[in-house]
């Protein structure tokens, strides 16, 4: 489980150990700068604000993506109407979107949260639509025959039935969120993990920049571990059902 990353890190270490390239410093040096770069204050002043924005933006994307996704997945008409405009918006590069968001939401945290949400929402939305569309017709019949009302149906049939695919989208959105966290901090930021990495890059503090990328990776692993725990609880029935394969 932890084997492969260790092997890769070891490879990295060996491959760059005698590196003199300015842009490819030895891993030794990168890890060496790590504590002073991050542990002396930046964790609180940069990493936490970033994570806060990420979580808010991600939560917003979840709410938007799932609710629009359920609507679009449930109604052919609604889907046909909203799909092209959504596809249009989806194809606009965030660096172009940012100025517009600045016009609408200023240069503060709101704008960054919106940038993150605007990027995260797509995988969640698309997966929710497809997940809802793929629900077993027999189950749908059962729900209809017992006249489960719209709310019950959404909660107990649609959301649960689509949840495996929604989880796929949410998982993906998490790392997109991380990427957009960095992108949003390229514009009008004054703190943050991404901001700091870019400042290092601009200031040619290359080992520090690399240490930031490593930290970004660590944050990604951490978040995905949390995600796995949450997913494990919400989809216990699903994983149980799939795992009953050989060992029972």
């Amino acid at each position, binding site marked *: 489980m932890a084997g492969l990353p260790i092997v890769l890190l070891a490879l990295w270490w060996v491959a760059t150990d005698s590196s003199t390239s300015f842009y490819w410093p030895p891993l030794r040096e990168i890890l060496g700068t790590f504590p002073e770069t991050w542990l002396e204050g930046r964790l609180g002043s940069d990493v936490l604000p970033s994570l806060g924005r990420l979580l808010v933006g991600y939560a917003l994307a979840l709410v938007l993506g799932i609710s629009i996704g359920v609507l679009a997945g*449930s109604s052919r008409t609604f889907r046909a109407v909203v799909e*092209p405009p959504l596809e*249009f918006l989806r194809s*606009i590069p965030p660096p*172009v979107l940012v100025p517009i968001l600045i016009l609408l939401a200023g240069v503060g945290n709101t704008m960054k949260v919106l940038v993150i949400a605007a990027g995260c929402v797509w995988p969640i939305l698309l997966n929710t639509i*497809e997940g809802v569309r793929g629900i077993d017709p027999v189950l749908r019949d059962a729900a209809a025959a017992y006249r489960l009302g719209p709310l019950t149906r959404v909660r107990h049939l649609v959301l649960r039935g689509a949840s495996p*695919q929604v989880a796929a989208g949410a998982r993906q959105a998490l790392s997109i969120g991380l990427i957009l966290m960095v992108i949003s901090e390229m514009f009008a930021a004054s703190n943050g993990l991404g901001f700091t990495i870019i400042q290092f890059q601009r200031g040619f503090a290359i080992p520090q920049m690399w240490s930031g990328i490593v930290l970004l990776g*660590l944050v990604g692993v951490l978040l995905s571990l949390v995600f796995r725990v949450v997913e494990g609880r919400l989809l216990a029935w699903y994983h149980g059902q799939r795992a009953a394969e050989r060992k029972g």
Partner: protein
Amino acid sequence: MTHTATTRTGGLGGRRSATDLATSSPVLGLAGVLGLVGLLEALPRLGVVDRRFFPPFSEMVAALGELVGTSEFWEALAQTLRGWALGLAVAAGAAVVVGLVIGSQPWLRAVTASTVEFLRPIPSVALIPLAVLLYGTQMQATLILVVYAAFWQMLVQVLYGVQDVDPVARDTARSFRFGTLRRVRAVLWPTALPYVMTGFRLAAAVALVLEVTGELIIGSPGLGRLLASAQTAGAVDTLYAIVLVTGMLGIVVNLGARTVERRSLRWHPSQRRDVPA
């Protein structure tokens, strides 16, 4: 007597109206696009956003009209499309192969999980200096970004899709002792296909976004560079004209994906005609 059968249980609100299938989806899609256009026209005109920085749709179109008259635009468009298609093809192919291989072997999945999580969130934009180091401002620099970003989009979808195989179907395949290849082709792949299609649509858009962003930031040739030059010159309407083009590319890509889907997923509940959509 033989009108297309619909059920009464579509969606949330009970019955689906008969117009649901009667009105064809391109017409409805057009309505959606017109709605967006209306919004883009109205917002600046009503002063919700400053029209000097966000011109009304009509002005964007006018600028687009000028733009399409230049050979420079078509050249840039071709370059963008080429980089995008190449990157997407490489990423999609690699992700499907890797995803099926990893997904079909539980132990491989366990071994690679943490590595995937580590590599995935590294922002492609953070790779820009490395890409430039390797390829300067040539097309390959942007290509790296495109492949890197699109690959993960597809891979995660494939992995989740492979996991979705029905336990009884899986038992069936095992009891008939399907070989690995047959199992992948006849069981894993069709199950994963809906996920793969979603992954492809996601990856296509992300690849386009990164192609343009890469061109914008690195300065490799394409629409992005055109955009950058409009930006640095403060030519707002030209800028949005290019944004319009990328958006329209997105719509076209989605139409294509939907067509492929309708053909390859005919069996899937989402495509069946006699059951609720």
